[in-house]
C-alpha cells in the first residue's frame, strides 16, 4: 500500500550572504496513515526545513527546492501556491515549537481557530465558533467556553500548545507535522502533550511527523525513525531497531552522549568530538566523516547511500554490516549489574 506522504530525493538550498546553504541534501522517506515518523537530529540537520518544505513554507525567493513530495498521489512541490493553500490546514497541518510566538498575540485563541475553519469551509461564524470550542475540549482544555476568548499570553505554556493542536486538528487533517512541539514545555506538560497527540492520532488515524532532537521523545511516540545529519538521512528504521540495534556512528554517538535515567551513572559522558559542519561547505563524501571515530579513507570521497541492512532498516555508512553490529555490541548501554 502506498504511503500517505512520500518524499523522494528532496533537496533544499538557500542563497545567503555567506554562500549557498545546502539545508536538505537528498532526503527520501515516507509516513503511513495512523503512524508516526520521527525525524531526529540536532540543529542544522535539516529536519525542520524538510518539514517546512512539505507544505511549501520554504518557497522563498532565495530558495531552491527540488525533488518530489507525493501526498495522496499529488506532487506538492509542483502545486501552485493557491492550490497548496487548500492542502495546508484541511489535509496537512503543522504545529511549531514555541506556542507563544507561533500564535498571533493580538487575536483571541478562539478566533484564530475559527479562522482556520472559515478559511476552508463554508460555515457560519457561529458554527465555526462551536467547532472551535469542541476542538478545545477534544484537546482537554478545561473550560473551553471560557478559554476560547482568551489571548495567547493569558494562557500557560501547556494550554497554548493545546490550543495550537486544536487549531491544527480542527479540520481533521490526514497528516500532522509537529516541529519540536514539546521542547519549550516543562517535562510534565510535555508528557501530557505527547499523550494527547498519541490519543488523537489513535482516534483520527492521523499520520504524524514528529521532529525533535530528543531521543526520549522519539522512543515514546514514533513508529519509524529517521536520523538526520547535515541535511541527509543517515539511518532509518523502526523505533525498536534504532534503539536496540542502531548501525550508524552518528546514532551511536547521539545515544552515547546523552545521560539517561535507565542506565547506571557513568563517570563521563561520551560526546561526539568536533562541531557541527558548515552547511555552506559541507564535508566531502560522508558528511559525518570528520567526527566519525571509525572513519575510513573512502568515507572522505564517496557519499554513502542509504542501503537496507535489515528489513525496513536503512543505513548510510561504508562500514560493513557485520562490523557495525560488532561495534554496537561493545558500545551498547548495559543494564545494571549488582553493585
Amino acid at each position: 500500500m502506498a504511503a500517505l506522504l512520500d518524499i523522494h530525493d528532496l533537496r533544499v538550498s538557500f542563497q545567503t550572504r555567506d554562500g549557498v546553504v545546502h539545508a536538505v541534501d537528498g532526503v527520501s522517506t515516507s509516513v503511513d496513515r495512523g503512524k508516526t515518523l520521527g525525524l531526529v537530529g540536532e540543529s542544522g540537520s535539516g529536519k525542520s526545513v524538510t518539514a517546512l518544505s512539505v507544505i511549501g513554507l520554504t518557497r522563498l525567493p532565495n530558495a531552491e527546492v527540488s525533488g518530489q513530495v507525493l501526498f495522496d498521489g499529488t506532487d506538492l512541490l509542483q502545486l501552485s501556491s493557491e492550490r497548496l493553500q487548500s492542502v495546508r490546514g484541511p489535509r496537512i497541518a503543522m504545529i511549531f515549537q514555541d506556542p507563544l510566538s507561533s500564535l498571533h498575540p493580538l487575536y483571541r485563541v478562539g478566533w484564530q481557530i475559527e479562522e482556520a475553519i472559515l478559511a476552508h469551509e463554508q460555515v457560519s461564524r457561529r458554527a465555526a465558533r462551536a467547532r472551535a470550542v469542541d476542538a478545545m475540549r477534544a484537546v482537554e482544555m478545561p473550560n473551553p467556553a471560557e478559554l476560547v476568548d482568551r489571548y495567547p499570553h493569558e494562557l500557560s505554556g501547556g494550554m497554548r500548545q493545546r490550543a495550537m493542536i486544536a487549531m491544527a486538528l480542527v479540520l481533521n487533517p490526514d497528516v500532522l507535522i509537529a516541529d519540536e512541539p514539546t521542547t519549550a514545555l516543562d517535562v510534565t506538560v510535555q508528557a501530557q502533550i505527547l499523550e494527547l497527540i498519541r490519543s488523537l492520532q489513535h482516534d483520527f488515524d492521523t499520520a504524524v511527523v514528529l521532529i525533535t532532537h530528543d531521543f526520549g521523545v522519539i522512543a515514546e511516540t514514533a513508529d519509524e525513525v529517521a536520523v538526520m545529519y547535515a541535511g541527509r538521512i543517515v539511518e532509518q528504521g523502526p523505533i525498536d531497531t534504532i534503539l536496540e540495534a542502531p548501525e550508524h556512528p552518528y546514532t551511536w554517538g547521539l545515544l552515547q552522549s546523552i545521560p539517561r535515567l535507565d542506565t547506571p551513572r557513568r563517570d563521563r559522558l561520551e560526546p561526539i568530538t568536533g562541531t557541527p559542519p558548515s552547511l555552506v561547505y559541507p564535508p566531502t563524501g560522508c558528511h559525518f566523516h570528520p567526527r566519525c571515530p571509525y572513519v575510513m579513507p573512502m568515507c572522505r570521497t564517496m557519499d554513502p547511500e542509504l542501503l537496507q541492512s535489515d528489513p525496513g532498516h536503512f543505513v548510510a555508512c561504508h562500514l560493513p554490516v557485520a562490523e557495525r553490529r560488532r561495534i554496537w555490541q561493545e558500545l551498547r548501554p548495559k543494564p545494571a549489574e549488582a553493585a
Partner: protein
Amino acid sequence: MARYIVRRLAWAVVMLVVVSALTFLIFYTFPSADPAALRAGRQATPQLIEQIRHALGLDKPVYEQFFIYMKNLGLHFDLGYSYQNNVPVRQEIFARLPATISLTAGAFVVWMLIGIPVGVLSAIRPRSVGDRVAMGGALVGISAPVYWLGLVALFLFASDIGKVHLFGGAGSYVPLTQDPGGWVKSLILPWFVLAAAFAAFYARMVRGNLIEVMGEDYIRTARAKGLPERRVILRHGLRAALTPIVTIAGLDIGILLGGAVLTETVFNIPGVGRFAYDSIVNSDLPAIQGTVLFGALFIIVANLIVDIAYAFLDPRVRY
C-alpha cells in the same frame, strides 16, 4: 484601567500648570521688545508708554503678575488680550481653530492613504525596483522643507499664479460651512504639501515594521493554516505592524492641531499656526502664550488618548 485614567488626568492637569508657568517665565525673562511700547504704537510718548505699562499691570512685581496670570487662566480660562487689536486671545484662537482642524484632518487622511499602502507594497517586495523607488521618493518627501514644497506647489498649481490653474491659491481659504467646494479647492494643495513629509515617514515606518513582523513565527503559522497570502499580510502582518504606528499618528495629530505654522503661513490659511506666526512677528505676548498653551494642551491630551488606545490595540498591555 479606570484608576490609570484618573491618574493620568491628574498628571495632565499638573503638566498644564507647569507648562503655563514655564511659558510665563520664559516670556517674562526674555522679552523681545517692551510690550508696553509695542502696545503704545508709533506715536508713543514716554508718558503713554508708562500709562499702558500700568494698565497692563507690567509694573507690578513678578510674582504678582504671575499670580494674576495663573488665576485668570485657571478660573476664567482667560488668556489675556492681544496687544495687536485688544481682542481676547481665547476668542482669536477659537475662531481660527476650524481652519487648523480642517487642514490637519485632511492632511491626516491623505498621508495615511498614501503612506500605508506604499509601505505595505514596499515591504512585501523588499529591495525590488518598486521598493527602491518608493523609499527614494520617501527620502525626498522627508528632506524637502515644507515651505519650499508649498511654494513650489503654489507656483505650479495655484489658480492665480500657477502654471496650471487648478487649485486655490494662497489666501483662498473659505470655511466649510460657507462654501464646501471652495473649501476643498483651497485646501487640496496644503493637504498634500503637509502630508508629503508625513506620508514619506509613515511609508518608511510601515515598511520597516511590516518587514519585521512578517518574519515572526505567527506569520508562518498563518500560512501553515492555509490562509490566502493577502489575508496573511493584511490581517496578520499589517495588524501587528500598525499598532505602534497608530499611536505615533495620534501624537502627530496632537502636534499639528497646535498649528502647522509653516504650511498655514505659506498658504495664508487663517489657522492657529498662522496666528502664532503673526504674534511672534509682532511680539504679541499674550497671543504667543495662548498659542503655546493650546499647543501643549493638544499634545497632552493626544498623549493620553494614545496611551489608552494602546491598551485596546494590544491586549498584552495592561494598566
